Each structure stands twice: as structure tokens, then as C-alpha cells.
């Protein structure tokens, strides 16, 4: 429905009238432009809740504030502390590893699911709802549920299933093993949001004209060739949005780690978000905490800028 409205206006807008009429219309449009104060309430709330605190945070990052006493400027001390502290450096690495795992696997599974349900199979509408449903449930609830799935007991949860299907040798202490905890958290996040990626890919697939596929088929292109040369290029906007959303989501991930492992065992699954939360609200190091937040913000900004620049370049207009 939305797509028909979109294409109808696009055609209308693409055919401008002769010079005089266009000028008249332009003057008319200026007259009919809504007044600036339409944006004022949103701008006020946004400035108060997002812009001002973010700017203040950037200032705090260069101070030694503990929330009560006075704020002294300490230059780059917080940042050298972050890169000097082994556990903080570990959290930086963990955040990056977690993000890469989530981005690759979640979108890979999401794409396969989307291709699967974008076919004639009879269960397609039910399956769409089933795969997307976990994404609407609170990440905290999902984390508690998966804490049980990752139960170290040999006959419960995932271990129980592995035993029942004869793969007992693969049983693990999923969240208790320092080498495994981070990947277990990634698995849980991927389970929850693979359906989210699927829905965005589906929206992209629905925008691929069927005639292009038919034409390619007549030209003798096989399944893989049609995917590679017709579907994939036209899927680029969906790929861009999915990569951006999952990257930003992965870098900022908090609730799931906090509820499932609280950064443990030891510092094995600590991420920038959990470290900055603990530094602020457990240890009262507000200055240090906002410095970590600033590093996180720079990461997110840099990655999304690279992605927009790089991915927009390979998008073709449908």
C-alpha cells in the first residue's frame, strides 16, 4: 500500500511542467510551506533529552568527576586509563568481537530465512510471524530464558538436547566457561534478532520486480545466477540498513549481557556498555564512565559513516 503511494508521486514529480508553470508552482509551494514552529516542540524535547546531555557527557569525559565533589579537568587521563587498563581493553575487544559475530551470523541467517519465506511455501505467513516474534519480547526476558537454555547441567536445556540426539560430547558450560561465554551471549542475541533482519530483507525482496527474474530465466540464468545478478544488487538498501542496525545494536549491547552474565565469568564477557555502567553506578567514576561512552560513540559514528559511504556506493536504484 505504501509502495503504491510512493511510486505514484514519484512519477508525478518526475514530469515538471514548462518554466512558467513550474515557477508559479514553486512560489505557490513556498506560500503553502508549514510554519517553522511545527518543528519547535520536537526540537525542544530532543535538545533537552539528547543533545544537551550528549554535549555535557563529552565535557565530563575530560574530568575526574565522581558525581558529588567538584569537577577537575584531567585532560586525556581517562582515555589513557582506558587503554592502559587490561580489563577495559578486554571489554573493547569483546565489544568488537561480539559485534562482528552478531552482524555476520544474524544477517546471514536473516537472509536465508527471508529467501525461504519469500516463496510459495504454504506456511510462509505463519513462519514470518514465528521468526519475528522473539524480537518483540524484552531482551531481559530472553536473557533469563537463555540462562536456563545454557544450563550447565548435563540433562537440562541445550545440553539435554545434545545428549538426547547423541551429541553428548558437545555439552558445555555455556556461560561459565570464560572462552565460551561471549559467544553464548552472541548466540542468544542472534536467536532473538535474526527475524528482525529477515523482515528487512523481506521488504527488500518484495521490491525486486518479478519481470526481471522472468527475463533472466528466459535468458537461461540458473537459480544462483539469478540471485547473484538480479536479487542481490537490488537488495543493497536492505543490506545497508541491516548492517547498520545490527552494528549499532551490537556495539551498544547492554541488557542481554547485564542480565545473562553481568560481564562474567571474571571479565570474559564484559563489554564497553557494562564497564561504563559499572564505573558510573557501582564505582561512582562518572568522568571515567563518560570517557568510555565517548569512545563508544566515536566507534559507532566511525563505523556507521564508513558503512553509509561504502554501501551507498554499491546501491543501484530499483
Amino acid at each position, binding site marked *: 500500500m505504501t509502495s503504491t503511494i510512493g511510486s505514484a508521486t514519484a512519477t508525478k514529480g518526475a514530469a515538471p511542467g514548462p518554466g512558467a508553470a513550474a515557477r508559479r508552482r514553486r512560489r505557490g509551494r513556498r506560500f503553502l510551506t*508549514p510554519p517553522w514552529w511545527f*518543528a519547535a516542540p520536537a526540537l525542544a524535547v530532543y535538545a533537552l533529552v539528547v543533545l544537551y546531555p550528549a554535549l555535557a557527557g563529552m565535557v565530563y569525559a575530560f574530568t575526574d568527576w565522581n558525581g558529588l565533589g567538584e569537577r577537575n579537568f584531567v585532560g586525556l587521563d581517562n582515555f589513557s586509563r582506558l587503554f592502559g587498563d587490561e580489563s577495559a581493553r578486554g571489554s573493547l575487544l569483546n565489544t568488537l568481537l561480539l559485534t562482528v559475530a552478531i552482524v555476520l551470523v544474524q544477517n546471514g541467517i536473516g537472509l536465508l530465512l527471508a529467501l525461504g519465506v519469500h516463496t510459495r511455501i504454504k506456511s510462509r505467513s505463519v*513462519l514470518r510471524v514465528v521468526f519475528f516474534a522473539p524480537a518483540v519480547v524484552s531482551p531481559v526476558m530472553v536473557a533469563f530464558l537463555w540462562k536456563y537454555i545454557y544450563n550447565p547441567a548435563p540433562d537440562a536445556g541445550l545440553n539435554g538436547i545434545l545428549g538426547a540426539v547423541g551429541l553428548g560430547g558437545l555439552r558445555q558450560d555455556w556461560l561459565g566457561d570464560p572462552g565460551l561465554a561471549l559467544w553464548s551471549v552472541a548466540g542468544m542475541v542472534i536467536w532473538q534478532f535474526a527475524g528482525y533482519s529477515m523482515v528487512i530483507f523481506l521488504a527488500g525482496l518484495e521490491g525486486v520486480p518479478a519481470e526481471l527474474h522472468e527475463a533472466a530465466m528466459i535468458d537461461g540464468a540458473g537459480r544462483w545466477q539469478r540471485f547473484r545478478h538480479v536479487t542481490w544488487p537490488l537488495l543493497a538498501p536492505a543490506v545497508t540498513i541491516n548492517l547498520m542496525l545490527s552494528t549499532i545494536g551490537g556495539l*551498544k549491547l547492554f541488557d542481554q549481557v547485564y542480565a545473562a552474565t553481568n560481564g562474567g565469568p571474571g571479565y570474559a564477557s564484559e563489554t564497553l556498555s557494562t564497564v561504563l555502567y559499572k564505573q558510573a553506578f557501582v564505582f561512582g567514576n562518572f568522568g571515567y564512565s563518560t570517557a568510555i561512552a565517548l569512545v563508544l560513540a566515536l566507534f559507532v559514528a566511525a563505523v556507521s559513516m564508513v558503512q553509509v559511504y561504502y554501501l551507498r556506493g554499491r546501491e543501484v536504484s530499483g
Partner: protein
Amino acid sequence: MSPRYGLRTFGLELVMIAAAVAFLFPVYALITMSLKDPRQIAESPLGLPTSPKTDNYANAWTRAEIGPALMNSTVITVVSLIGLIAIGSLAAYYLSRQATRLGYGMYMLFLLGIVLPFQLGMIPLFKLVDAAGLLGGYPGIILFYTGVQLPFTIFLYTGFVRALPADYANAALIDGAGHFRAFTQVVFPLLRPITGTVLILNAVFIWNDLLTPLLYLAGSTRETVPVRIFAFVGQYVSDNGLVFAGLVLASLPILAVFLVLQKYVIKGFASGLKG
């Protein structure tokens, strides 16, 4: 898409259903566990409950104090949504009809909010809310959600309005209506599909959020469902049946809303893609 339902499609159907079954295992564990007592859980952690116990649900309901928490979550979510939709749609309408550099700059400023991690402003904002005496009550957290979700809301609305012909509003203006009246009576009703999407996506985020209500509301009488469940799970960590019944109760409202509005969700992403 293959032309008709052949053997290949049938094979794919089986594969996809198998994937769905594997995918649903955690849900199976959740529901069966919520119907067992500790002894049944110890005897058969994965089996179906032999004599389903429903009193886990009654106990979770009272002990986790889910009733009042549901009320709090509902008030906070609904009022934030009204605020978001009212000021977000109005601003997006202005931004998408404004071809000047100022309008574009303002739009980019709002989009910056999607990328900026809220953690950067978390402490200054917490201090601000505290100084204004708004900790532990509705207004502070409602203001927070309205501000934090505005960028995403404006992004969705702007994409949609850009594809909407200006003629409807212009006709109303020529007929003598003011800009505000033209918006509320002519334009806003036309935005219904995207309003549905904005509604459900923001509702999911606000309803499910843990960190903000933990900071702003913990220990008050205004605690939301995730905060109550978080405390409840910590308290009854040894009684899995009870905890899982609590998790089911806490997730049902948002799942019900999703099932009713799921068409909007899936369609809404398509219009977001165009924006």
C-alpha cells in the same frame, strides 16, 4: 518465485518448518518449565509436564507484583507514544515540506540521534532528572522516552510524508484552513499506515527497556514490568517453574499487541526502506 507448488517447494517447506521447530525450542522450554514444580523439573527437565501446575502463574502474579507493574508500564508507554506521535509527526511534516538548507540541517541533526549512543548522555541526563526532582515518577521517564525515540520516529514519518502528494494539504489551505488545521484534519489521517508502524516499534522499545526504568524508577511505586521481573528473578532464582511463569506473564501483553498489529510491522519496514 517458482511458478507452482512442486516437489522442490515441498522440500523447502519441510526444511523451513524444521528450522522453525528448532527455533522454537527455547519457547517450548519456557512454557513446559512454567508448568512444573521443582521436583518435576529435577526428574525430567525437558519432558512435558506430567501434571501441569498452574499455581506457578498465580504465585508469580502476586509475588512479582505484576498487576501494578503492568499499570505503570501501560501509562508510561501510552503517554510516551502520544507525545512521540504528536510532536514527531508535526516536526516530520515540516521537515519533509521544507526544501531549504535549514530544514535539511535540522533533519540531519535529528538523525544524529539514531547513531549517538544514549550512554554518552546517560549520566548528565540522570543528574538533570534528579535535580528537577523527577526521579521515581512518571514525568521524567516519559520525557526521556519521548526525546530518545524522536529521531527514529521522525525518520519513519519523514520518509512517508515525502512520498505523499502535497495537494491535499494545499487544497485545505486554499479553502481557508490554517496550517495547523490542515495538518490535523487532512494530513495526519493520511499518515495512518506509518503511524501504525511508529506505534508498534516504539511500543516494543519502551515496553521492553530495562536500563532507564532501573535508573529512574527502581525502588519507587512506579516500577515497570522488566524492573519487577528483574528483581523477581533475582529473588526466586532457585525456583525455575515460578520464574518462568513470571517471564511468560511479563511477555504476554507485548506479544498480544504484536500479533494484532504484525501486518503493520512487516509493511512498515518497507516504507522505512524507501525513506
